[in-house]
């Protein structure tokens, strides 16, 4: 019997697990995918928002501003790459300038620090080189960029290190409440029990709420496609460049250009309602559109700079055509005590994650006293980056262990030791994508052309993988149909 069961191991679920792991609680996280960052938490812009888009007084506004501060502490504790870049919203005509002032007003009301409307082409370009013909901008110094999948992984692995149990490949399909206990069943028929149940199932949150017995929520999957540009362009872009928010889709911030902490530049996301909550596709129409819209905002790239495309899916609580403001739902359901629902955690869900976790903790504390665990370790004890060490230190380590000397990924210069650390992750996530996200291998220019066969060799020789054990990112995503020459 667990004290707390969390359904969905994305950034939100794992932030809650991390927060609650400070206390003497038995906690389980159930994640249907083979790893924790395969949902929205690994497919987004990775922007630490400041909080000027959201209606004053709303949860989105409060939690975003609170999360923005708290997250900076978390980044340090959890070794998550973060850059305090600041950000600009560009205005190209007077109507848009008016919008900037409106947003500044909202931001000020929300308690966002340092917002400033800057007028004049030269001044705008001074703040943000490459802003081009923009006549004004809203400059937000509190905005920054970070690695969202490394955040999610670090949260999960640190929670795990503090005793939280992670069940991967475990989809909760049935929940009943009997005598104050939630009885959960997964897709294989395995059963689990818990006293508190938390729904952080992202784009499936409405569906899962229904499974527990609370109807009335609906999520409309809304796809955001991205293009990734070669990191050779990185020196040209200092900070995210956003347009004045689009009015087409409620809550969408519009196609922006964002540097990433890894180097490649993001263009996107588009906003398109689709039926499939996992319809992660790139479409020719949108790819063209992104290219054009991105080019309007920041005309410094060519077709051949595009190295990859991907998409993420927003858990939108608003249907197509609806433009009014919808807030996060974060509450204990009255009809089912001890069931905490989190629905519609779309942007700024990542930024807000620490604050969401705090709120969930307080909901529990209203009913019971939580006892601090003395040996709680808030720091992520893994995830060191060899490439970031000084040259002297690198030489010292390479002498100490041949695995620090052997470079496996030539694009990102990842050592064999880092690859092995990623393979030996505490969650026992086994897919190639799990290694990719942890070690940041197979992500560079060649997209694994050089290192993928090497990683496969390590998995085979040092971890005994058989051809059928190799999966890319999902159940059924086999890499090999077998041996070319069989042994029998």
């Amino acid at each position, binding site marked *: 019997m667990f004290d707390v069961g969390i359904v969905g191991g994305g950034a939100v679920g794992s932030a809650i697990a991390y927060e609650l792991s400070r206390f003497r609680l038995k906690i389980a996280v159930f994640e249907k995918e083979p790893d924790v960052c395969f949902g929205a938490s690994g497919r987004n812009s990775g922007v630490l928002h400041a909080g000027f888009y959201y209606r004053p007084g709303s949860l989105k506004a409060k939690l975003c501003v609170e999360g923005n501060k708290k997250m900076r502490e978390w980044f340090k504790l959890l070794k998550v790459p973060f850059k305090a870049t600041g950000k600009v919203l560009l205005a190209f005509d007077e109507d848009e300038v008016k919008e900037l002032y409106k947003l500044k007003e909202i931001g000020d009301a929300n308690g966002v620090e340092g917002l400033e409307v800057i007028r004049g082409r030269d001044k705008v370009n001074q703040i943000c080189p490459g802003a081009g013909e923009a006549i004004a901008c809203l400059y937000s110094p509190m905005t920054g960029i970070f690695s969202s999948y490394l955040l999610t992984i670090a949260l999960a692995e640190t929670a795990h290190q503090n005793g939280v149990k992670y069940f991967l490949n475990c989809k909760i399909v049935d929940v009943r409440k009997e005598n104050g206990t939630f009885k959960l069943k997964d897709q294989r028929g395995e059963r689990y029990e818990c006293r508190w149940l938390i729904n952080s199932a992202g784009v499936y949150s409405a569906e899962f709420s229904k499974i527990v017995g609370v109807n009335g929520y609906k999520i409309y999957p809304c796809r955001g496609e991205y293009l990734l540009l070669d990191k050779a362009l990185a020196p040209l872009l200092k900070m995210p460049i956003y347009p004045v928010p689009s009015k087409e889709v409620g809550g969408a911030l519009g196609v922006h250009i964002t540097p990433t902490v890894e180097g490649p530049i993001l263009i996107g996301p588009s906003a398109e309602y689709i039926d499939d909550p996992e319809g992660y596709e790139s479409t020719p129409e949108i790819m063209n559109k992104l290219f054009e819209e991105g080019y309007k905002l920041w005309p410094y790239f060519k077709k051949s700079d595009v190295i990859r495309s991907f998409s993420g899916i927003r858990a939108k609580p608003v249907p197509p055509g609806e433009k009014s403001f919808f807030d996060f739902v974060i509450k204990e359901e009255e009809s089912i005590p001890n069931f905490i629902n989190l629905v519609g955690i779309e942007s700024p869900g990542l930024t807000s994650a620490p604050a969401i976790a705090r709120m969930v903790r307080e909901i529990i504390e209203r009913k019971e006293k939580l006892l601090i665990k003395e040996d709680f370790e808030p720091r992520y004890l893994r995830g060191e980056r060899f490439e970031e060490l000084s040259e002297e230190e690198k030489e010292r380590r390479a002498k100490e262990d041949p695995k620090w000397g052997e470079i496996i990924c030539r694009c990102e210069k990842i050592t064999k030791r880092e690859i092995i650390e990623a393979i030996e992750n505490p969650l026992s996530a086994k897919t190639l994508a799990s290694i990719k996200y942890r070690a940041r291998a197979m992500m560079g220019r060649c997209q694994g052309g050089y290192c993928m066969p090497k990683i496969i060799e390590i998995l085979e020789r040092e971890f005994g993988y058989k051809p059928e054990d190799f999966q890319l990112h999902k159940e059924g995503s086999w890499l090999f149909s077998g041996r*070319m*020459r*069989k*042994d029998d």
Partner: protein
Amino acid sequence: MTKEMICILCPNGCNLVVYFDEKNPDGFKVENALCPKGKEYAQSEILDPRRTIATSVRVEDGEIPLVSVKIDRPIPKNKIFDVMREIKKLKLKAPIRSGTILISKVAGTEANVIATKTVERVK
């Protein structure tokens, strides 16, 4: 009869034009060949098309699990899959030296299967 074909003997890939009479194999005339091999090729391609193949054989205890192999002379085209079947059955133990004959007269042809790589033994 005339026939156009691409000579595959070397990367030049000459566009050969072949004039021939099936009853008189000596009466071959070949145009557009950059070298004399082109004529030989055309003749063989029409009367008795042949190919060489290259593939791999399983090696145990080697630094790599496969040794690359080839056949040392062209075999009739319709024998390719027979030869492949024989090669697939073979299993070797390292070390293997490049140039070693692994199967002689494979699948009833005149060709030998030979290793094209050296695979050292490990442990």
